[in-house]
């Protein structure tokens, strides 16, 4: 059996890549993609933890999988709304580059 630590390292690495992408990308679509990567890193963590807890005979063994399903569902809704807003943005402003989205600033 693969140790829990490996899964957690994979999750942390994916989460870090996603966070870097969300902060460094210029296109709004790629930012949303990076956030998806972060959410899926969380899912790996959750399912690995649930499987580990199941292995050592702890209670609530399926909670992790259930949360992962909820996270996937909510992420889908979030992406739907995000693309609707990005589309509207493109119609109003002609760009989805977040560097150029700067009417509102101090």
């Amino acid at each position, binding site marked *: 059996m693969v140790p829990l630590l490996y899964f*957690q390292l994979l999750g942390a690495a994916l989460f870090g890549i996603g966070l870097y992408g969300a902060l460094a990308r210029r296109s709004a679509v790629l930012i949303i993609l990076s956030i998806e990567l972060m959410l899926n890193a969380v899912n790996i963590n959750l399912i690995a933890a649930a499987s580990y807890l199941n292995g050592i005979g702890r209670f609530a063994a399926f909670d992790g999988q259930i949360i992962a399903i909820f996270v996937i569902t909510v992420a889908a809704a979030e992406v739907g709304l995000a693309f609707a807003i990005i589309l509207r943005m493109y119609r109003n402003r002609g760009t989805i580059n977040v560097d150029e989205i700067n009417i509102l600033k101090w």
Partner: protein
Amino acid sequence: MTAYDLYLVSPLLALAGLAMMVIIVDLLTRRTGLLVGVAFVGLAAPAALSAWQLAELVSTGESRLSAQGSVVLHTLSIDRFSLFFNFLILAAAGLVILVSTDYSRRMERLQGEFFGLLLLSATGMMLLVSATELITMYIALELTTLPLAAMAAFLPNGRSSEAGMKFLIIGALSSALMLYGMALIYGFTGSTRLDEIAAALSAGASAGAFPFGSMAVLLAIVLLLAGFGFKMSAAPFQMWVPDVYEGAPTPMVAFLSVASKAAAFALVLRVFYVGFDALGGDWWVLLAGLAALSMTIGNLVAIAQRNIKRLFGYSTIAHAGYILVGVAAVASVDGTATFGPSSVLFYLAAYTAANLTAFFAIVCIGNRINSDEIADYSGMLRRAPFLAIALGLALIALIGVPPTGLFFAKIYVFAAAINTGESLMTWLVIIGVVNSAVSAYYYLRIIKVMFLQTPIHTERVGASWPVNVALGIATLAILWLGVAPTPLLGAAERAVSVLSGG
């Protein structure tokens, strides 16, 4: 799931059903007045069901409705704490709906969706304040945030879609961080329920003298605070606040600034006081740091603002800081942990009254003069006496001057901080008092512009009667909380007894 469980979640179901009904009514008829009427009168159903639950609590003398042991599989707690916030959220939603009557004409065909999204967001908030389990909290947070993001992008102009996009992207980012924290907590304690998390943590905390029990818990708490900080609009997670406040439709901003903030603070109180109680003196230092940062950043940057909605964005960051002082006041010298949280509840109620009054006046004035620049408010006292006086009173309340509710709220929050007996908290109170003095400058500047300068135009600025009614109610609430704070403070104290297991 039993019939009793259905009764417990009935206010939530009624509110979600009302949201659907508003959208259907909008499909069937084009009359705006009817739509507002249905949305406003329909709020009576969840309010009545909540009142019924409260009456049951009062008659049995309990603080929590849990006769059946499991409340919807242990995911919710319907108690005095959640009911307190239910009424606060419903009141804010009702008043905002009344005020949207004039404003919603800008949205042309989409008015039904606007009110529907507002009610759905309120449903999410009511779910959030009673959630005692991590999955439910995550779902409720998203149900609160996503409709608000859609509403922020509602106006057909570039500013509004920019506001919606910033709100959505930063919201998604912070909820991903929070979710990672939740995954760590779940992996560490093996449970998603707050009471079981508390038990697992106290077993772990007694094993070693490590701060926060372990590095994993420390990391998880920092990540959770990133997500909660976004909802509370506390620094350093405040980057979105001024942009969204400036670009989004004003009634939505009014709702966001009070109801969403109140729900977020309810969540923070429940998670930290119930879930992380065993970590005792560790986490309040983090919250105290956030409080100092929020107060200072909010007040200093607000001084330079020329747009009134943007100024209120910074003002709300500063107020998040004051409220966090109360949240950080966890332990007091005599061992009771209810002073801090009850002062937070009172502050949130008083802040709701003051901020709603201010935003309602801004909605009316901005709707007529088509500008949110403070310079265009000059001589508003002559153009719209009622609106100017209400806005002036709200600004005086936000400074924290008697006889307004926020005066007592600030005193309670700072007294709770002093009462902890920690020297760090005393310093925090000093920072808070200095910041209150700084805030007087930019609030009084608006009053000076409105009351002392000569008007540019002479045409009168007025509003329709539902707007005036909502403004009147909010204004009276400011004064009522300032003259007679005791009943509400008593309710707040009974509400927070739930947090310490009462």
